[in-house]
């Protein structure tokens, strides 16, 4: 996974609340067996409206998405994160994320930057006034700033998540450092817990 410390670029604001994963990527796209190729899927239905923010000139160059509260609610599809990344986003700034979405974002290396509702409004207003403004999402400092609008606000991100994003670490590798503990835990599981006899592996 790519290390992420400072994301700099333009931003797009979609200041709606409760943006669900069915809007971020409709189910029809989930039939793909790859992790890529989802850029056109992103907000597919909403993009049919020419006025939608992602259809504005320059939006395809944006690195940061600013959204409303409870972003990413609904399904567990990690494809929602992949679609945002395929489009070019490296961070989503919102006053709150759905739990599974937040986990998926961190797993896949998309920064879920949680700001206050007031800060999100301030950022969206600044982008409305100047869509070409440069936004910086600083993972190390945990701040979002638009220097041209003199905005610099903190965002919330758990220490462990921050460290993983900064280092670009693979979770499985970290967990396998605990192999001994996992093996010894397995010897003590309750004897009635179900096991499903595996079919012969090829």
């Amino acid at each position, binding site marked *: 996974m790519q290390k992420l410390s400072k994301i700099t670029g333009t931003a797009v604001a979609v200041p709606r609340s*409760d943006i669900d994963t069915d809007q971020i990527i409709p189910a029809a796209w989930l039939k793909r067996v790859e*992790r890529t190729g989802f850029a056109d899927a992103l907000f597919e239905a909403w993009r049919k409206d020419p006025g939608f923010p992602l259809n504005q000139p320059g939006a395809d160059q944006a690195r940061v998405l600013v959204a409303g509260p409870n972003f990413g609610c609904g399904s*567990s599809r990690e494809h929602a994160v992949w679609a945002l990344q395929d489009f070019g986003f490296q961070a989503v700034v919102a006053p709150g994320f759905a739990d*599974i979405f937040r986990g998926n974002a961190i797993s896949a290396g998309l920064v879920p930057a949680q700001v206050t509702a007031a800060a999100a409004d301030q950022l969206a207003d600044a982008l409305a006034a100047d869509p070409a403004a440069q936004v910086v999402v600083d993972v190390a400092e945990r701040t979002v700033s638009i220097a041209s609008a003199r905005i610099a606000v903190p965002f919330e991100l758990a220490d462990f998540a921050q460290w993983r994003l900064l280092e670009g670490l693979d979770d499985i590798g*970290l*967990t396998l450092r*605990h192999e001994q503990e996992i093996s010894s835990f397995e010897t003590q599981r309750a004897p009635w817990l179900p096991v499903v006899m*595996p*079919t012969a*592996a090829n």
Partner: protein
Amino acid sequence: MTARLFDKVWDRHVVATPADGPALLYIDLHLIHEVTSPQAFEGLELAGRKVRRPDLTVATMDHDTPTIAIDKPIADPLAATQVDRLRRNCAAHGITLHALGSREQGIVHVIGPQLGLTQPGMTVVCGDSHTSTHGAFGALAFGIGTTQVEHVLATQTLRQVKPAAMAVTVQGELPAACTAKDLVLAIIRTLGVGGGAGSVIEYRGAAISALSMEGRMTVCNMSIEGGARAGLIAPDDTTFGYLEGRAHSPKGAMWERALDDWRTLATDEGAAFDSEVFVDAAAVRPAVTWGTNPAQSVSIDDTVPDPAVLGTPAERQAAQRALTYMGLTPGTPIRDIFVDTVFIGSCTNGRLEDLRAAAEVVRGRKVHQGVRALVVPGSARVRAEAEAEGLDRHFTEAGFEWRYAGCSMCLAMNGDTVGPGQRCASTSNRNFEGRQGPGGRTHLVSPAVAAATAVAGHFSTPGEL
């Protein structure tokens, strides 16, 4: 020290508490399906890793499988590839697969409980947000993304920050005309779609204890629609009665040992929750959603709400957008809204008890002219059991289509869709824009209301037919 049910289940699965971050939690059961697993297996193989515990992993096909002509090759090439990939991955890694056409195939959250695989005190995960369903057994069950699926395949564990514990206490008794679905829609209306974020909900109180296992699964299933990580209910005699004798339930002396353990799985007297919500069961009415998120529901006796009277500007704006999408005018009585489609099925309401309730309503009646009505059993076993009781005949004689098991029109990946601008009364769990097909309009209801609506052509309860 007093502990909550959630703490008891959590604590017994902590493998390690690494200094660098969240706890490492052991996973007792990993359910997989065709849609969220291919990239996980690919990642695993690219890294040269193996499935650590194929014996704790169970696969099925449900999300994009057809519900008609299941003996024919799948027509959609993308779906066919995805299903083949699952078959290959399960064969290569020695994972048990309940493939399309087999007796135990079905929606992943229907087959786990039905096989006795979901038991009290377990941790259950799946690359699907409605994994919360399994919490009905007093298990800690939650949905995960594909990278985490790969993590569980490789390590049988997950790194997890411990969520907060929320109590949703439902006092009193549900009115006779109301079901678990009406109750959970009322709970979500109280919580809001993001109200449970960061929490695991324990449902308690007299009205919860009075629910059947099927009803408890309906409630826990929709925990995610209130934003919660998971929902659980303390196991009791209803739980044990459901589990006894199932394929993977403990047997003989082991059953007795398990029971002794399971009886300890309750929140201790006096244990405090991080937050608490109270709902009065007696005030619940048959619910119908009017908007584009599951918190936007009213009683069937009400009218479409006026966004102008809602609390915050954001709520007003969201409601206005929802009404525009839904093609509804404030003040319209819910009963005056006509539907084009009725869908009975999904992991929320696709179990035998749901089909019985719906069949009872349509028996001897006819689906309203012009309404397309489908019943999609939650699993092949549910379908077989329903047929053994003759429920299929009540449905088909009334004019319903009787399908094979799967997710079907709940997320419309398999070609079962609601057309643009069409209106559907659905027993599923999500009414998001386009959920049942681009431009489709979804109203979430209980199986009884769905069945009555199919007959009346507009929203109706069985009592009014």
